[in-house]
C-alpha cells in the first residue's frame, strides 16, 4: 500500500485534506483525516455506517464550515468558502437520497447549475447535452415525481456534471438500486472519469466500489484506518474487523 494520505501516480493534486475533524457537541464524528486525491483518479471512500464518510463529504462541500483541519482544492485553501462557491470552482457532489428540485422540470433542474456555475452558457443545447449524457433527454420536460429511482439518481448525476466538475463526490449513488441499475450508474461514472473528472465514490455496494476504484480509503469511527490499492486494503485486518467484527 502507498503511504497514508498519498495518492498513487504523479498527476496534479486536486484535493488535499489535512487533519480534517468534526465534532458535534462531545461526539467526534471525524478526527484528523488526511487524504490526497490526484487528477483523474477514482477513489473509493468506504466504511461502516457512522464512520464519518458523509461528515467528511459535508466538510469538503462547505456544509460544516466549522470543521477542524483544512482542505486545499487545486492548490487553493477552501477555508470558509460557502458550498455554492466551492461548486463554482468545480467541486460537485451528489446526495445520498436524490434531492431534485421537485417544482422544476428535469431540464430546468439542469439549467440551475448551468445558469449559476458560470462555467458554460446556460443554453438549452448544453442542458440537453447533459441530459443525453445520462439518457434522460426523453424526459426533459417531465417533473421529477414522474421519474423512477434510478432515473432520479441519473438526474442527480446530470446536475452535478452540469457544473463541469473537476472533482465529483458520488455519495451512495447506487444505494437501493438493482444489479442492472448499479451497472447503469457505474457506466456513467466511468464515462465521466474517462472525460477527465476525478471521482470520489462513497458506497456500500462493494461490487461497485471494487470494480470502480483505483484506490480505497477506509474510515472507521471517524478515523482513516487504511488507504491504498483495493485488494490490499480489503485484506487488511483492521478493515475486516470494521466490517465483520472481531
Amino acid at each position, binding site marked *: 500500500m502507498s503511504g497514508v494520505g498519498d495518492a498513487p501516480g504523479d498527476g496534479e493534486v486536486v484535493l488535499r485534506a489535512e487533519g480534517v475533524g468534526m465534532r458535534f457537541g462531545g461526539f467526534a464524528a471525524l478526527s484528523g483525516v488526511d487524504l490526497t486525491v490526484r487528477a483523474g483518479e477514482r477513489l473509493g471512500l468506504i466504511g461502516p455506517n457512522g464512520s464519518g464518510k458523509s461528515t467528511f463529504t459535508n466538510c469538503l462541500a462547505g456544509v460544516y464550515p466549522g470543521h477542524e483541519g483544512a482542505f486545499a482544492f487545486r492548490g487553493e485553501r477552501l477555508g470558509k468558502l460557502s458550498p455554492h462557491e466551492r461548486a463554482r470552482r468545480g467541486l460537485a457532489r451528489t446526495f445520498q437520497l436524490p434531492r431534485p428540485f421537485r417544482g422544476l422540470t428535469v431540464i430546468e433542474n439542469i439549467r440551475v447549475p448551468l445558469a449559476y456555475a458560470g462555467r458554460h452558457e446556460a443554453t438549452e443545447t448544453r442542458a440537453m447535452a447533459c441530459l443525453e449524457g445520462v439518457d434522460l433527454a426523453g424526459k426533459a420536460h417531465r417533473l421529477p415525481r414522474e421519474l423512477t429511482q434510478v432515473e432520479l439518481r441519473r438526474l442527480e448525476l446530470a446536475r452535478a456534471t452540469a457544473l463541469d466538475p473537476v472533482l465529483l463526490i458520488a455519495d451512495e449513488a447506487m444505494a437501493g438500486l438493482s444489479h442492472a441499475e448499479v451497472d447503469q450508474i457505474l*457506466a456513467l461514472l466511468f464515462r465521466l472519469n474517462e472525460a477527465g473528472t476525478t471521482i470520489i465514490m462513497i458506497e456500500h455496494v462493494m461490487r461497485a466500489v471494487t470494480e470502480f476504484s483505483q484506490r480505497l480509503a477506509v474510515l472507521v469511527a471517524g478515523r482513516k484506518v487504511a488507504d491504498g490499492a483495493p485488494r490490499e486494503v480489503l485484506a487488511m485486518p483492521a478493515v475486516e474487523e470494521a466490517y465483520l467484527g472481531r
Partner: protein
Amino acid sequence: MSGATLPAAAPLAAPRRMGHGAFWLASALAALALVAALRALGSEYAYFAATFVLQYVVLATAWNILGGYAGYVNFGAAAFFAAGAYTTVAVGKAFGLPLLPCIAAAALVGGALGLGTGVLTLRLRGAYFAIATLCLSVVLQTLVVNWDFVGGSRGAYVVRPREVPWPFDSYGGFLCAVMVGLAAGAVAIARTVEKSRLGLGLAALRDDEAAAEAAGVPTLRLKLVATTISGAMMAVAGAPLPYLGSYIEPNSAFGLAYGVNAIAMPLIGGTSSWAGPLVGAVLLASLQQAATVTISSAANLLIVGVVLVVFVCAAPHGIVGLFRGQR
C-alpha cells in the same frame, strides 16, 4: 462491468413562451384598456372599487416574490404596506410632494426595510422566519403610534389635491389609473423575475436550499434580492392608501386584513406563477368588496378564511395549479 444504458427517447418539445418585452407591452396595453373601460363607466364607486382590488393585486404579487417563488412565508406584509402608506404621509408633509414622488420614496423605504429584514432574518427558516416577520409588524406599528409627525395614534388626514392631473376628470379616477399602472408594473416585474435566472434560482432554493447551494446557487444573496424587491413592491402597494380614504391611522394601516390577504390571495390563486396572485387577488378582493356593500365589511376576513380553507383542501396548488397539472 457492463456498459448498460437505456435507450434514449425522443425529447419532448419545450412549451413556447412570450418574451419579457412582449409581456411588458401586453401589460401596458391591458392597463390602458382597463383605464379606458373604467373611464367609460365614469363612476366614482367604480374607481374606488377598482383601486381597492388593484392595491391587493400589487400586494399579493409582491408577497409572492418572496413567499411563493422563494418559499419564505412573510407574515409581516402589513408592515411593508403601512410603511409605504406612512412614507406618503411623511414625505408629503415634509416636502409637499404629490403622490407619484411619494410612491417612488415608498419603494426606496420598502426596499431598504426588506433588505434590512432579510439581513437580520434570512438565516432563519420556516416558522422561525415567519414569526420574525410578524414581530417586524409589531415593532413598526409601535414606532408609528409614537411618531407625532405622522399623527401618532390619532392618525393623519391627507387632503386630496384640488387640481386633477390631465386627462382625468376626478382625483379618484387619477388614483385608480395610478393603481392600474402599479398593478400592471407589479405583474410584469413578477413575471420577469419568475422567468429569469433569478426566478430559476429562487425556485431551486424553495425546493431544496442545500441542493441549490450544491448546484452553485448563492442562496443568501438571492433571498436578499427577493426580500428587497418584495418589500419595495409591498410598500408601493400601500403608498396611495392615504389618498384613497383621505385618512390613515395605525390600526387600519397595519390591519390584520392586509397581512392575511397578502398570504391568502397567492395561496388561492397559486404561488408558483405570476398569474396566481393576480387571479387570487381579483377574486378575493372583489368578493370582499361585494360583501362590504351588500352584507358588512366585518364579513371580509370570514370570507377569506372560508375560501382559504376550501382551496387548501380542494386545490392546494391554487387555481392556476388546477390548470397546470398541479405543478
